[in-house]
């Protein structure tokens, strides 16, 4: 059995004049957890749709276990568990009825179906509510059920499209714990999210998409090492004085930029050791008294911003 579970090559998808996905390639190894990040409209959902056979690519190819998915009834689809971005549940039915319906689509029946439904309910912590209609559920509970539905047929690969979107922190944690547990059980996971901390906690690797292309595909540490970004040092000043001292700072080797907002001075430091001590020396010479110094290294968030020019979440 090959190590490669899923392999996408040069995927292209156009909607009318708009190219939503423009030559995306990546692969997932068995047991790997990979984060798929990108701003709104980057093409994440479209990519996942092509991976799961919902959309035919206009170009490129998806191979699952070494073979392309052919046709709607390809049994290979059983390898996949899709958690759609939108809730896809029948509100008027009970949690159990929902699970039994979707399970039957995977040809589960009888005792096997009952067991699968029950264990999925337990897994997401909804066993108590199995007989309640979904419309009586909270948003977070619906999200958990949305996840449970994808687990019924015990798929090897889980495609999770923003499974924690729009839920309270408590449910988010619960869902996230579930996904971590799935990972421990050896499932291969492609995890789309707008929350960087989820990726940092869960994933070995991150794929960043923007405008339909992959702009980065690397491990977390690999990504952090790429930093072209400067560290930032925040200095709290005792009092603010006029003078050319601010411009003088930017002339110092190791300092790329200096900004003053109120009594807060922000230094963009390219050489933390030499640059920072030279800057502090300069401030002392011009009699600017520094009350405190605080430094911050670039986060994934910053890297994302730098790669895409947009922040991970709008606003």
């Amino acid at each position: 059995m090959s190590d490669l579970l899923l392999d996408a090559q040069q995927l292209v998808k156009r909607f009318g004049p708009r190219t939503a996905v423009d030559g995306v390639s990546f692969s997932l190894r068995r047991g790997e957890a990979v984060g798929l990040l990108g701003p709104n409209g980057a093409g994440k959902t479209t990519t996942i749709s092509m991976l799961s056979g919902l959309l035919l690519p206009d170009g490129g190819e998806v191979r699952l276990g070494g073979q392309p998915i052919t046709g709607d009834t390809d049994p290979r689809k059983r390898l996949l568990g899709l958690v759609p971005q939108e809730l896809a549940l029948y509100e008027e039915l009970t949690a159990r009825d929902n699970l039994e319906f979707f399970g039957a689509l995977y040809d589960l029946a009888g005792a096997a179906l009952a067991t699968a439904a029950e264990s999925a309910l337990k897994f997401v912590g909804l066993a108590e509510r199995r007989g309640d209609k979904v419309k009586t559920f909270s948003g977070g509970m619906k999200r958990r059920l949305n996840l449970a539905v994808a687990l019924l047929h015990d798929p090897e690969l889980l495609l999770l499209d923003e499974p924690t979107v729009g839920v309270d922190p408590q449910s988010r944690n619960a869902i996230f714990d579930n996904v971590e547990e799935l990972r421990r059980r050896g499932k291969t996971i492609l995890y789309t999210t707008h929350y960087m901390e989820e990726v940092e906690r869960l994933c070995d690797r991150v794929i960043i998409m923007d405008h339909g292309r992959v702009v980065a595909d690397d491990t977390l540490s690999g990504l952090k090492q790429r930093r072209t970004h400067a560290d930032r040092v925040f200095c709290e000043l005792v009092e603010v004085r006029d003078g050319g001292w601010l411009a003088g700072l930017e002339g110092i080797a190791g300092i790329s930029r200096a900004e003053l907002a109120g009594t807060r001075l922000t230094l963009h430091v390219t050489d933390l050791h030499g640059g920072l001590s030279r800057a502090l020396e300069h401030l002392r010479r011009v009699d600017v008294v520094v009350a405190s110094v605080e430094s911050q290294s670039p986060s994934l968030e910053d890297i994302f911003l730098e790669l895409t020019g947009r922040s991970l979440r709008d606003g």
Partner: protein
Amino acid sequence: MRQLLALIRLDLKLFLCDRRALIMLFIVPIGLASFMGSVFSNSGGKSSVGGGMGILLVDQDESAVSRGVVDAFASDPTFRVTVTNEAAARDMVLNGKRPLALVLPAGFGADALPGLFDTNRKPVITLLHDPSRNMERSMVEGMLVPKVIQAVAQNGLSADLGRDFIRRGLTNLDRATQVGAHEQQLYRSMMERADEFLATRTNRSLFGSAKGSTNGAPAKEFNLPLPFVTKAEALVKNTKGEYNGYAHAFAGMSLQFVLMSLLEMSVGLLRERESGMFRRLRAAPLSRGTLLLGKGLSYAIIGLLSLGGCFAFSMVVFGVRINGSWPGFLLCLVLTSLMSAALGLALAALGRTPAGTRGIGIAVVLLLLMVGGAWVPTFILPRWLQSAALVTPTRWALDSLDAMTWRGLGFEAALGPVGVMLGFIALFATITWLRFRWTAE
């Protein structure tokens, strides 16, 4: 197969949870059909027109003949007559208080009989009518002829009138050039003998006793008969009961709401397509064909439940009976349900957005219902529409149900409509198969 059953079970469960759908498919059609059945049914033995059609009569002549016309209408239970003047009549018709008014002009009595022979002397009866009430107009126009003839015959045929008629005929004879002298002579002598006879009858009714006869009682008038009498015989091939107007009303109304509800459900399918639901369905190893077949069958079952439920109600409460073939009736119900489901899906397959499909779909369904005769009998419609009705599936569905219920026809009478409905089902299924898109792209 497992998938198919799951799809059907799903829709039935959803249907049972949907209170609105239940109301639309059971309560509303039963209520409306009960109402329409009671309006159009003859089963009570009462006049089908209920209180009678209110019409206005304006008598500007006040002759015996014009009074005879007024009396003829007034004594007919089909009408509720109000006599008034022309201005008031115009006003009431204009304001929609009455569908129409008949104005009998001055000189009507004197001219009515000569008008039969002399185109220059025809009296003009004005018919003022509400343009939205053409049905009443046709009805009154139809009734006018026998009533006027009756009135003229009773009151207008007198010896004097006859002699006047002969005089004018002889004058015309003098001017006639193309008639040979011998024939002229024969005709003249015949007419003169007739005039002699009439002269003996002056002041008497034509064939009766003398007017104002000895005892002073009005003479028994000569009554010109119509050349026929009518005897109504309702033709229903059913030995057990009689025509039950509820049968057609229930067929029409339940079909209407089945079509509407199944259209609504098909539109729901389009909505699902736009939501994440279809992504989930399609992520499973499920074929488009299985999905569509599952939807078609579950919709048909829902339709069948509704049609069956409504008919069951009509049987229990209104005594509707399957006077024809029971197997034929059940077959027609099944085919009607399948046809309705296929139509809903075909409309959804042709539509793009849910909202647009809904709008166009409702228009199509209403048109099919109207042309197909679910609301009013098709004979009221213009002829081209009646021909058009033959290509509507609704017409065949309703005909087949009528045939098996109150018409009391046998199983073989169901086969024609069943064949046509099968054709429609095949057509709609093909459209659905070719045009239904999986994705909302």
